């Protein structure tokens, strides 16, 4: 049947390439740097994470090969396998490391705030700035975490559950009305993550800080006092 159909030339790996994504700037350690073995290993580990993030932004999770990661990280395959057994554990470690760094930044910003709304606003701002400064990491955390193997997706769901918990005000600081249910908080966290992922996919990660106000409006919508104040402002 239809043997005369000409097969198109296929370049599936090339078609996924994202030349607009700049390759990572990896700082190599000069020979005889005087660094301890542990310091060299920690440096290698972070280069692998950066290489993975850059490779994922080019190829997507499915098509990313260890070869791409080591090439971008400027390391040998042997070094990669000294750290990780393969793509899946490497992704899990990079994801955990990224979430850890993001949480540290957000918690530091939240720490000084007076009142729950101010803390929420400060945390949101710090998180958006962090993601905007590292589009490849933002892509790994928000997009590829959903595309990766099932354990990674479940880990991402656990992160969203923690985020949901952080989005609920303590009872003493409830801005009017009733507390939101755990389920509503999960929906808010999911919607927030989905919006951020959409921005990252559209190559607009650098513009995330501009979304601060609309995101804050979204996160505060369930609270009576805030909602009526927003309505008053709208009328004014």
């Amino acid at each position, binding site marked *: 049947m*239809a043997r005369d159909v000409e097969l198109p030339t296929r370049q599936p790996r090339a078609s996924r390439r994202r030349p607009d994504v700049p390759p990572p700037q990896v700082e190599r350690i000069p020979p005889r740097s005087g660094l301890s073995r542990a310091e060299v290993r920690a440096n290698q580990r972070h280069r692998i994470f950066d290489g993975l993030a850059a490779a994922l932004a080019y190829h*997507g999770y499915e098509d990313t090969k260890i070869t791409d990661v080591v090439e971008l990280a400027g390391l040998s395959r042997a070094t990669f396998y000294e750290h990780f057994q393969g793509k899946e554990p490497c992704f899990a470690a990079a994801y955990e490391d990224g979430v850890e760094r993001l949480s540290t930044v957000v918690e530091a910003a939240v720490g000084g705030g007076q009142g729950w709304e101010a803390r929420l606003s400060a945390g949101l701002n710090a998180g958006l700035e962090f993601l905007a400064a590292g589009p490849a990491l933002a892509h790994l955390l928000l997009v590829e975490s959903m595309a990766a193997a099932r354990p990674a997706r479940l880990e991402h769901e656990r992160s969203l559950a923690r985020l949901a918990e952080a989005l609920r005000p303590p009872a003493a600081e409830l801005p009017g009305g*009733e507390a939101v249910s755990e389920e509503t908080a999960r929906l808010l*966290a999911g919607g927030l*993550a989905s919006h951020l992922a959409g921005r990252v996919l559209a190559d607009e990660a650098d513009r995330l800080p501009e979304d601060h106000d*609309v995101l804050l409006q*979204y996160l505060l919508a369930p609270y009576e006092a805030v909602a009526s104040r927003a309505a008053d402002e709208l009328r004014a």
Partner: protein
Amino acid sequence: MSSEPERFEPDALTADLGPGPALSRLPAGRHRLSRSFVTRNQRMRILAAMLRVLPRHGYPATTIGHVTKEAGVSRAAFYAQFESKEECFLAAYDLAGEWLCEQVEQAVDADEEWPARVRSGVSAVLRSLAANPALAQLFAVEVLQAGSAARERQQACLARFAVALRAGRPDGERLPPELEEMLLGGVITTIGRYVDAGRTEQLPEATAELVEYLLIPYLGPGETRRIARAA
């Protein structure tokens, strides 16, 4: 609302091609069927096959070989229609999205008050997906694994549901579009959570929570809870 939710039958895609050879493989050798008939028949059979094999393997492990074998067409026939597995997936996703939108349109009564319309729409989506776990998997999981073009297609699908969500709102009362798409993104994440937990059939349980979450930004928490309690 008590009627059984509709099942999505990929094979129904080829039904409108008419009786006879449309539903099966075309006769081998010389036949008098028109070129365009053959092409359309093959395209629909390939898309139906894609939708049938996806839940078996998941997008990453699905191959063009799986699809052509299921469809009973040659690889050449596949490549005459689609450049890649991804392109075929996107066309299949669009068809399924179209079907889900139709379920919502059929469930929503334009004479109802807006909050009741939202409830009908949410209920239709959740019941349709609960009755079709493979589609729930497609919308909330597979699409995230199929590359950036698929994610863009998902955003377009959310934008379409956002239009349905705001339909029937009094004029001049609009939320920023980003906020509406964010609301629907939250809904998709919740569907994904049910799918990952193996609880797709229980999706309709989430109806009340989802309706409340969708109404709050429009109506405010007080009014929303009054409506929720009255329902």
